[in-house]
């Protein structure tokens, strides 16, 4: 589904991503773990088009996507969430979600003059779907709250809801669980798994090992910009390098 080949990105003298090379199999929930500062978020930015690689290629669904702008990448069916949530603070939660669907007729300004009926119909469907998705993400009671007034965890949930509005072919999740209440997270995990069963591929950065071990197949481990491990969950916990760099002696 997604191939990252020898990708390098440096900031000044430091190589944040240093020849990372791995693949995300179609239909998988691939976990991406690694110590803080390993380059995971930077890699997401490279895949999603927010940054342009210095070298290397990124292939999504058989086509190169490195160098495309984020909105183009999104239109190819690849969506992402942000590690530090980026809601549209002065818009309501409902409208944050309603914004997300692509190809809305009403986004072409003259359609609002020339084809008001079509726009209204789409908006109604869009609104109903937004209410459903938000309800699912535990934000059902916050529909008309300004997104900027949400608590930290709620903003993360909103971030997730926005990508779910589109059912893209692949979703990049950057630490979806950080700051989210564990009980709620469990429902979200169920949703991710359910979506995955319907064919959406996930690449997921997470430090919550319980979560990673439970749903991620395979797991990719990065350290200092490089991929140091690629394989199954069980093998990860036995890999000396991973233990040393990442897990410490904590894993249960």
């Amino acid at each position, binding site marked *: 589904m997604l191939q990252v080949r020898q990708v390098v990105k440096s900031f000044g003298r430091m190589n944040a991503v240093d020849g990372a090379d791995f693949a995300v199999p179609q239909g998988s929930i691939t976990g991406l773990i690694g110590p803080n500062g390993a380059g995971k978020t930077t890699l997401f930015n490279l895949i999603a088009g927010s940054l342009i690689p210095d070298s290397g290629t990124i292939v999504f669904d058989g086509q190169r996507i490195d160098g495309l*702008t984020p*909105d183009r990448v999104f239109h190819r069916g690849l969506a992402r969430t*942000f590690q530090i949530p980026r809601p549209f603070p002065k*818009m309501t939660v409902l409208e944050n979600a309603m914004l997300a669907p692509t190809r809305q007729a009403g986004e072409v300004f*003259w359609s*609002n003059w020339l084809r008001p009926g079509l726009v209204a119909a789409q908006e*109604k469907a869009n609104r109903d779907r937004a209410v459903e998705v938000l309800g699912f993400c535990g934000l059902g009671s916050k*529909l*008309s709250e*300004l997104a900027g007034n949400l608590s930290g965890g709620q903003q993360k949930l909103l971030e997730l809801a926005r990508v779910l509005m589109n059912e893209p072919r692949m979703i990049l999740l950057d630490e979806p669980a950080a700051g989210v209440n564990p009980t709620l997270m469990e429902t979200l995990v169920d949703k991710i798994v359910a979506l995955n069963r319907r064919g959406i591929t996930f690449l997921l950065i997470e430090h919550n090992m319980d979560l990673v071990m439970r749903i991620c197949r395979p797991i990719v481990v990065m350290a200092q910009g490089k991929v140091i491990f690629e394989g199954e969950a069980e093998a990860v916990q036995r890999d000396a390098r991973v233990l040393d760099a990442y897990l410490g002696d904590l894993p249960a």
Partner: protein
Amino acid sequence: MIGIVSYLVFFASIVLILGIIALGLNLQWGYTGLFNAGIVGFYAVGAYAHAILTAAPRPELIGNFGLPWIVGVAGAMAATALAAWAVGWATIRLRGDYLAISTFGIAVSIQLVTLNWEALTGGSQGLSAIPRPLFGWFQTPFGFNLWFFGLLVAITATVYWGLERILRAPWGRVLKAIREDETAAEALGKSPRAFRLQAFVLGSTLMGLAGALYVSFIGFVSPFDFMPILTFQIWAMVIVGGSGNNRGALLGALVVWAIWSASGVAITKLVPPAHAAQGGAVQVILIGLLLLLALLLRPRGLIGEESVVSRHANDPDPLGKS
């Protein structure tokens, strides 16, 4: 009595023309977050385009084609749209203060062109033989003003309706999202550049329209109509009225312009003629104080921004608000 009515009609006409500019700015700033500090430049392009197209021919000048009013208005909007597109293409990626100072510079440049390119613009003398629509039909200036006021009401209403249509809809929602967080909007597949450019051109076109209306109302245009102070006045209107709200922009135009001119009346009545010069200073101080007071009492403007953009999102909540 008829005198006061006649003055009020005139006053209201100016308010509507300024109001159209304020609506254009509100589209750019209130909804899209584009800091256009070059309003007066686009206003000038519209005004001069209209004047050049419609004014009676004069041998020493290029232009002055004597075309019908409506052609002038359409031409003015087209010319402004083109200018805005070119300016937008070069500057739209700049943010905040940078965009402001660039557009400001463009406005200064445009004003200098109107001042220095005599063959086209008449230079500092301006262009004067600009026809007013159906002026000949009316016996009195009041009759003409009343008709033109009616025309302005119709145009403003159309503009308002057209804007509400596109803003309280998905298009407006994307604009607002881009204003709030460009990166996040881009990550959701919206192209900030394209939308910002659309809003910029559309808003500037309204400013050009206002320019055309202004010259065909006044019948004279010169570079001195386009000093930077006007840009500030329009900004004050949008801020005082409440940015992100079209009714606020129109109300702001009324309030700010009323302050600007009513303070003059007050001073003439209150200050003895011997101190007229100081009176002028007091008037401007008064304007400044009123502006400050408005901002201190209503920092978010008279009519605040609405939190819901799309009118469709407001339909009865299917889950009964839970």
